[in-house]
């Protein structure tokens, strides 16, 4: 390209307007302890570090590019996760530049399963018989909801062109039958709530009132058994959560976070994470300061619980009522990404209304 136009004018430099420019901020570097602030030197991170005034020693990290730094009291954690190793750890955009997240992603079923248990080898297309019918039914169950069984039948002709399409598998194809197969699917060998993943099915007994009957105490009241509760051991779920790949990003010690735009400004406290809040710091300190013969470093696993009745369909009344938990030691930016699969399902509460209605008419 010539440097000048035929007219003698130089070429104009074209630039995207500022509002369209996506200037990505630098990836925050993992915090580095500010060596000058150490009082006294951290010979043993587990022992109490007190400065000359008898006050807890303060350890500060170097501020990052935004002027945000962390402050740990008493001791430094022996492990600090590197949460922002790549852009995909910071955002969830399909257009994001580049590299994969640094932690391996578990499958969507991981919320139900235990990482300590590996499923046995079985038909990967279950409950369908083969790749051909799986392809068809998977298409039917996804995307637009205006498909019909006859449309699916029509698709057979289009799908035939797929590379792995086997015509022979469709000899006796019937969408109705395949749909019915999915509806009545009950895999006895590996159900969703698999005992191998720690799921226990049991019934719960509750005392109920009976109309026009007086009981002397709650013990003498009739007991109603509510069947169909699925649950897992709380300790088991937390253990399994700590064995997942994402556990590498768990913070083991809470800290205070401060923001100082420039060196002359006073630092401003940043409240944004479970582990940078006063509650977590107080609980951590309470547990850490308890005398115990065990010399292992103590960690507080902050459990955040939810239980909401969840609608499963846009039309109809299908719903579930799960109790699930998240581990607060994980950054909310990772935790809240659906693709991080950070939720752990603890229990599924049975629907009680109908059972109860029939019961109460019995007395």
């Amino acid at each position, binding site marked *: 390209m010539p440097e000048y136009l035929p007219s003698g004018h130089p070429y104009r430099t074209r630039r995207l307007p500022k509002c369209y420019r996506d200037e990505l901020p630098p990836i925050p570097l993992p915090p580095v302890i500010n060596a000058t602030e150490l009082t006294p030197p951290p010979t043993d991170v587990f022992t109490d570090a007190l400065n000359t005034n008898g006050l807890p020693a303060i350890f500060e990290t170097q501020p990052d590019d935004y002027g945000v730094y962390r402050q740990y009291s008493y001791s430094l954690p*022996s492990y600090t996760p590197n949460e922002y190793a790549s852009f995909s750890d910071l955002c969830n955009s399909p257009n994001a530049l580049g590299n994969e997240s640094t932690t391996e992603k578990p499958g969507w079923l991981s919320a139900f399963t235990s990482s300590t248990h590996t499923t046995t080898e079985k038909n990967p297309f279950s409950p369908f018989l083969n790749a051909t019918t799986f392809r068809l039914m998977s298409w039917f169950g996804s995307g637009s909801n205006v498909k019909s069984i006859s449309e699916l039948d029509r698709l057979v002709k289009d799908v035939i062109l797929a590379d792995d399409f086997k015509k022979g598998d469709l000899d006796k194809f019937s969408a109705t039958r395949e749909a019915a197969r999915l509806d009545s699917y009950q895999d006895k060998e590996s159900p969703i709530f698999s005992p191998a993943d720690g799921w226990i099915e049991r019934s*719960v007994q509750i005392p109920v009132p009976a109309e026009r009957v007086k009981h002397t105490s709650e013990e003498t009241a009739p007991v109603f058994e509510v069947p169909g509760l699925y649950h897992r051991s*709380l300790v088991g779920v937390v253990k399994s959560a700590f064995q997942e790949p994402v556990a590498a990003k768990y913070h083991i010690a809470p800290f205070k976070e401060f923001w100082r735009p420039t060196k002359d400004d006073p630092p401003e406290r940043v409240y944004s994470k479970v582990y940078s809040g006063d*509650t*977590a710091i107080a609980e951590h300190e309470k547990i850490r300061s308890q005398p115990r013969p065990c010399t292992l470093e103590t960690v507080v*696993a902050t459990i955040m619980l*939810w*239980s909401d009745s969840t609608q499963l369909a846009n039309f109809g009344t299908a719903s579930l009522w799960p109790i699930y938990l998240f581990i607060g030691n994980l950054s909310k930016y990772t935790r809240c990404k659906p693709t991080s699969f950070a939720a752990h399902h603890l229990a599924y509460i049975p629907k*009680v209304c109908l059972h109860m209605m029939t019961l109460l008419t019995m007395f």
Partner: protein
Amino acid sequence: MAASSAVLTHCRRQLMHAIWLLLLDEDFRNAYVYGIVLQFADGISRRVFLRFLTYAADYPEKYVCPLFILYCDLTDMICKQDSHSVY
């Protein structure tokens, strides 16, 4: 004879209490007081204490969750524990 809404509410509350008392089992109580030793991503074992920080639930039968009742029990347990016990 259909159950009144007050009775149903009572039953749902009873159910939630029963489920939580089931979930907060002996294992959990021990883990709460003594912690559990887990291996972390860096291969180092640490003693992990389970603590509930938040509980968000959306249903009309509002009540004092058994978690708080249990917390009082556990606080007692921590106060009464023998300081020489091995953990």
